[in-house]
């Protein structure tokens, strides 16, 4: 992916000040999942919306690309919140489909087979039946089960989904809960990877939301990947007459007093808007405002990013006796979730075999995806030649390292290599290109603003820095801002 080169915004031609002026009711900045969902909701109820996207594809972090005739998803390992029989109608995914008027059947969700968290010698398996996970915890940590059940009760009672939920440290809550420290570390691993912007911790409300989303509800994947979500959204935008503009970067947001007045594009065009929703992040929005603080407290800059390598191989993972969907692994008993000092941290990571969603095992070829924490600055400092060299090195190293976490993986190395059709990798630089997040962060700033409000009356944040993470969270966040900040007001 590193070979895709885009014109740098600052190099695009700057038109004269006599450039076009457009007016609209709402400008939405960013066509990621939050921006798409917000734009659909607003347009459904007659708002005139312009949706701006800097990149040439929609989806933001959850986008897609093609390589040698094959389709790849950028972010999607799993769609969480699967409405499994045990979670029933409470899944936010159902609420989301209702709000966007997309029948859930259209997504053609394929549930996971089963997944695993492995720390050293200890493993916990889970599937889309929460009782199975409970039995796994009881088997692996018999002396912790009472404390664990007590913790679950406490999590149920905590107002995690409220906009003013207190952002306590999950690490300290787990430490005080009386569960085995290793169990605590193992719970942190999937929840951090699927949505923590905080270094080496996750705020408690987000932990609860992700715990529910991953374990109580469950994992699935649309048969056609992220396109199954993006395509109906873009079709709706078209049908509703939303002016969607790709390759349209915002240069600045102009304000007057306590109101945002207009958005100026890199092309020089001015768009006057009654309301603006920015999904590009809190710090990124501040830079468009040329301000340091749009919040009572100064926002922190996020640091966490990842590298992901993908091996496309002939046949199905089951041919190699690999039937798991996602594997969260950590070499030792202590989980470290942070921006590594080097280019890549091999200590922990995530393996995903998307072909183990659903029950069709007749695929001609399959993917093995391996993800590790990576350092954006280190990757950005490399020359083009060094970048390619490092990318090739880490691609092989990561994919081989992952084999030690797969059943009989090391013995199957040669066989897997023979079957390999293609290797591909995306780095923190790629994530930056898709998301425009400072530092190529996966989950934005550790500072979140759940209700989306800013010090400007008509400027709202949505998406990553609202603090509702994942595909489902991002869309629900965008919907919540559209509903509560704009539609309710009339």
């Amino acid at each position, binding site marked *: 992916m590193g070979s895709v080169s885009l014109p740098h915004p600052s190099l695009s031609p700057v038109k004269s000040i006599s450039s076009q002026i457009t007016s609209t009711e709402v400008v939405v900045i960013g066509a990621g999942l939050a921006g798409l969902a917000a734009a659909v909701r607003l347009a459904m109820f007659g708002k005139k919306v312009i949706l701006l996207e800097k990149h040439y594809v929609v989806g933001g972090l959850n986008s897609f690309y093609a390589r040698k005739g094959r389709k790849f998803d950028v972010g999607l390992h799993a769609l969480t919140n699967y409405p499994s029989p045990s979670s029933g*109608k409470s899944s936010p995914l*159902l*609420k989301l489909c*209702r709000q966007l008027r997309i*029948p*859930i059947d259209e997504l053609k969700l394929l549930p996971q087979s089963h997944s695993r968290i492995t720390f050293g010698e200890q493993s916990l398996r889970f599937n889309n039946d929460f009782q199975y996970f409970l039995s796994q915890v009881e088997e692996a940590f018999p002396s912790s089960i009472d404390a664990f059940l007590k913790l679950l009760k406490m999590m149920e009672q905590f107002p995690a989904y409220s906009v003013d939920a207190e952002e306590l440290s999950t690490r300290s809550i787990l430490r005080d809960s009386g569960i085995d420290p290793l169990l605590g570390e193992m719970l942190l691993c999937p929840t951090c990877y699927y949505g923590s912007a905080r270094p080496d911790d996750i705020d408690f409300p987000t932990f609860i939301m992700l715990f529910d989303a991953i374990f109580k509800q469950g994992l699935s994947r649309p048969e056609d990947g992220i396109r199954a979500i993006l395509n109906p959204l873009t079709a709706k935008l078209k049908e509703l007459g939303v002016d969607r503009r790709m390759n349209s970067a915002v240069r600045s947001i102009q304000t007057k007093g306590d109101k945002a007045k207009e958005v100026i594009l890199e092309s020089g065009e001015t768009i006057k808007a009654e309301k603006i929703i920015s999904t590009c992040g809190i710090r990124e929005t501040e830079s468009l405002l040329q301000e340091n603080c749009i919040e009572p407290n100064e926002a922190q800059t996020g640091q966490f990013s990842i590298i992901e390598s993908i091996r496309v191989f002939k046949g199905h993972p089951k041919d190699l006796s690999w039937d798991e969907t996602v594997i969260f692994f950590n070499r030792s008993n202590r989980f470290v979730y942070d921006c590594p000092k080097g280019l890549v941290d091999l200590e922990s990571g995530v393996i995903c075999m998307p072909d183990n969603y659903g029950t069709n095992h007749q695929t001609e070829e399959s993917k093995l995806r391996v993800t590790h924490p990576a350092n954006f600055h280190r990757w950005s400092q490399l020359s083009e030649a060094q970048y390619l060299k490092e990318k090739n090195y880490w691609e092989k190293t990561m994919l081989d390292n992952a084999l030690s976490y797969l059943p009989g993986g090391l013995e199957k190395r040669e066989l897997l290599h023979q079957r390999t059709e293609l290797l591909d990798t995306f780095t923190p630089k790629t994530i930056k290109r898709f998301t425009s997040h400072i530092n190529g962060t996966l989950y934005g700033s550790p500072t979140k603003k759940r209700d989306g409000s800013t010090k400007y009356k008509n400027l709202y944040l949505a998406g990553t820095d609202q603090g509702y993470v994942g595909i489902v969270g991002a869309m629900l966040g965008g919907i919540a801002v559209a509903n509560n900040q704009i539609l309710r007001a009339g």
Partner: protein
Amino acid sequence: MDKDKVKQIVLDIIAEIAPDEDLNDVKSDIRLRDQLDLDSMDFLDIVMELRKQHGIDVPEPEYRELESLDSCANYLLPKFEAGAAA
């Protein structure tokens, strides 16, 4: 326009918003929330659809007037009639 027509309009809107709900046996005098899986987001949609389809405005403090089909009929009928007369 009469109360039964208003109830039907509300049911039609719910059918659109929540196609997965079974609306065959909805009781008029029981809160919609207690017999269907509807939350505050769905009620906002009922309000938004009333405005979009019928030009009827329900101010936020009055959302609770929509809690059952009977209360919807009582509350919305004058609004429909006022709309028709205008």
